[in-house]
């Protein structure tokens, strides 16, 4: 830590005295480099951090520069007033360009943003207000009391301060609530939605941030050169900017800055061989993409990983600690008594002629542990997707916590108290375990982002509170040793537990578990059973899809059996396994139902049995039988 502060200080001093060693042309190049650094930060925030392919960054740059130029030369605004308006204009442009992101992603978004950038270039080269191909000259000098900004040396300090603040703010965003959500959205937007992140707003936020930084760069550029012309904002420059971000490392803002400054300097240095230089960037981008997708910024950690693997000294003392049960809640919420927590009324779901769910009705009372079983393809996961808002039922109604949620979006459901896990594990792969938990713990709405602009202490305070809660949750689930690991590097069983911990971080009233025991060994299944019981005892209702019938038999009070999209049986585990329809569905043979069951025997299950179970005579299978 000390080393870090020390080297940061040294860097600051070096940057401060840098102009003393440079000629007037060199300082000009450095000034340009700093502007590109700002642009690259914006690009990194949209592409690397938020995963929104944004090929309109030069247009944001241009909107900033041109707005300033037009306002100062045509409308007679002062530089700083025009600068503020220019930033507002780019922010608005960011919102506008971001709208398509609500409807499309990935390559579609790339093409649309590139097309809009082309449209912008087309406009500035033709409109008379922007001076056409000649551009606008005579932009007034920005004035600061006591500082003569006509000197490029002094302008450097202005840029340095702005860029440092910009980088600082960017890093602040990335490392706190908003940035975490953005990164979660990048890694897995479906799971992020299920954890309460408002995806549409977040996408717009990403573009607004990109626009803001682009505008800032544009204002500084106009103040530095005092002349704007279309060729600065060309598509070729857009791709160079992209190369900067990719080479530097799109996921690291510092990497973006390094890439931008480095490439600008190299470009200048090789200006006599610019075509070869261009060839070089292209080749480097291709090589980076194939061999080092995380860019320069990612190389240290990859090298470290490599050395660690070669060294083979796996000093991995980390261990999964036991789960510490929740405090049982004795009295269940009173509201849950009048109405079931979850009610599905004749839901049907069709996929282009294929009926995945056929008139399914299901009621889950608060405090229940409900099992949903059935052969492959019987519609279990589809049912979960309908309940959690990923799919919209073709017909029928879903009611959750007393309201109609048939058409409610996943993030709203999450805020209402519904959490889920996924069959194939959808952890945020580029986030640490702790951050995975933090994303889910964060219950604030996205519109609180105003705090980032106006009241940062509020953000920090909230952050502290969340981190404390996360630590508690990690301890409860025995995950403290893995808090800062990447989930993908951990054994499967631990990843499963992380997913449950993440779902529980949202403080749900209803938890949907999709095959929580898949891939777990016998001991882990036992631990899972304990965890699920404790979750129920703290007052969270649990519905689980599971193939491990042993687990279902020992854990669930009631079981619903689906087959070919319809409910074929419902009841206690013992009733259900004896039902001919179930045996038919599973084994294809109703005659085998005659084979005697191992007797239920006296009920040794010590688990608390909430009053929701309508059939107290039912006997969950004994431990011996479940092996």
């Amino acid at each position, binding site marked *: 830590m000390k080393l870090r502060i020390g080297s940061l200080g040294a860097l600051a001093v070096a940057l401060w005295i840098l102009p003393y060693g440079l000629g007037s042309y060199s300082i000009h190049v450095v000034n340009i480099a700093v502007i590109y650094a700002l642009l690259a930060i914006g690009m990194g925030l949209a592409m690397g951090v938020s995963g929104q392919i944004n090929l309109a960054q030069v247009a944001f740059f241009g909107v900033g520069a041109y707005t300033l130029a037009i306002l100062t030369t045509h409308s007679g605004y002062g530089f700083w007033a025009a600068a503020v308006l220019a930033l507002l204009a780019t922010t608005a442009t960011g919102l506008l360009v971001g709208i398509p992101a609500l409807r499309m992603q990935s390559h579609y978004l790339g093409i649309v943003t590139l097309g809009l950038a082309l449209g912008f270039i087309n406009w500035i080269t033709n409109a008379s207000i922007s001076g056409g191909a000649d551009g606008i000259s005579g932009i007034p000098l920005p004035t600061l009391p006591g500082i003569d900004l006509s000197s490029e040396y002094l302008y450097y300090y202005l840029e340095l301060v702005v860029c440092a603040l910009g980088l600082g703010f960017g890093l602040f965003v990335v490392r706190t609530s908003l940035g975490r959500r953005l990164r979660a959205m990048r890694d897995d937007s479906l799971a992020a939605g299920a954890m309460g992140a408002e995806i549409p707003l977040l996408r717009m936020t990403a573009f607004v941030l990109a626009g803001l930084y682009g505008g800032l760069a544009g204002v500084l550029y106009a103040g530095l050169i005092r002349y704007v012309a279309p060729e600065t904002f060309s598509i070729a420059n857009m791709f160079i900017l992209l190369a900067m971000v990719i080479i530097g490392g799109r996921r690291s803002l510092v990497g973006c800055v390094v890439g931008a400054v480095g490439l600008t300097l190299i470009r200048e240095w090789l200006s006599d061989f610019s075509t070869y230089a261009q060839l070089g960037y292209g080749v480097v981008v291709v090589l980076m993409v194939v061999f080092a997708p995380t860019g320069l910024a990612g190389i240290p950690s990859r090298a470290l990983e490599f050395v660690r693997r070669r060294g083979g000294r796996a000093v991995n003392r980390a261990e999964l600690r036991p789960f510490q049960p929740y405090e049982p809640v004795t009295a269940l919420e009173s509201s849950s008594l009048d109405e079931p927590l979850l009610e599905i009324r004749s839901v049907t779901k069709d996929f282009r002629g294929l009926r995945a769910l056929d008139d399914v009705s299901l009621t889950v009372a608060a405090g229940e542990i409900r099992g949903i079983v059935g*052969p*492959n*393809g019987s519609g279990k996961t589809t049912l979960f997707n309908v309940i959690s808002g990923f799919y919209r039922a073709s017909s029928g109604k879903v009611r959750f916590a007393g309201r109609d949620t048939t058409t409610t979006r996943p993030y709203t459901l999450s805020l209402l108290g519904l959490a889920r896990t996924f069959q194939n594990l959808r952890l945020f792969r580029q986030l640490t375990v702790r951050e995975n938990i933090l994303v889910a713990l964060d219950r604030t709405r996205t519109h609180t982002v105003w705090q980032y602009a106006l009241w940062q202490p509020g953000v920090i305070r909230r952050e502290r509170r969340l981190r404390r809660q996360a630590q508690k949750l990690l301890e409860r689930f025995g995950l403290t040793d893995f808090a800062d690991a990447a989930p993908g590097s951990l*054994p*499967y*069983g631990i990843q499963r537990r992380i997913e449950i911990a993440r779902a529980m971080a949202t403080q749900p009233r209803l938890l949907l578990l999709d*095959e929580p025991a*898949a*891939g777990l060994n016998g001991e882990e299944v036992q631990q899972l059973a304990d965890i699920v019981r404790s979750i129920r005892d703290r007052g969270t209702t649990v519905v689980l899809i599971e*193939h*491990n*019938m*042993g*687990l*279902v*038999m020992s854990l669930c009070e009631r079981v619903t059996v689906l087959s*070919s999209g319809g409910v074929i049986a419902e009841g206690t585990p013992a009733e259900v*396994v004896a039902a001919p329809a179930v*045996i038919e569905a*599973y*084994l*294809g*043979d109703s*005659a*085998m139902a005659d*084979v*005697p*069951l*191992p007797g239920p025997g006296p009920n040794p299950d010590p688990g608390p049995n909430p009053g929701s179970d309508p059939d107290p005579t039912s006997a969950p*299978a004994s431990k011996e*039988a*479940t092996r």
Partner: protein
Amino acid sequence: MRKIPAPRTETAATLTVEDLSVHYGGVCAVRSIGFSVEPGASVGIIGANGAGKTSTLKVLMGLVPRSGGRVTLGERDLTRVRARDMVRHGIGYVPEGRHVFPGLSVEKNLLLGAYARRWDDETRATLEEVHQLFPMLREMSGRLAGALSGGQQQMLAIGRALMARPRLLLLDEPSMGLSPKLVGFILDTLQRLREEGLSLLLVEQNAKLTFGATSHCLVMENGTVAMTGTSEELSQDTRVRQIYLGL
């Protein structure tokens, strides 16, 4: 390109699997299992969902990487043969959920089944045989495979695999989502093919159906073989049901 002689002219060979294992990430899906399929035999693999049945077939086909073990067909070691060459060694595969090519016509689907062979008169003859086995496929020749019903797609998937004239057919859950009558028809058809010398390895969740269609069965549980025996014996065994229902 290498030409591999038409399989059925070769002497029949036994498929032998030893010590085969599959891992996905950290999960062990199949743990050193072994079995063999004699020429003209019909062997079933049954078990509950997630027991490792599909993984077993996929690793046999080379579609998922093997973490250990050996697969031989007669004298020939198939362990390192690539998935796309399996069909040239006489192994046909009918994947779970049929996986027909939805945007191509039924006829194209069938012809692609014979991709590894030259498209000639012999292919036409095979197509004729497949049409005789499943007359529906002839009627639907021009339809897009994606527009067929589940049962029709299943027949198409089997027909497509047969077009390569395999010696051994791997079938993954052919009964899934089909009516009992249709399943009966498909199994009868497979039975007829077996009489002509085709070996079958049938993966099924539906135990009764499998017992009826095979001579030997393996019951899988948690990636291992929990029981083996003749289908006759197993159909009487109560433990099968316990494994299924987790009792």
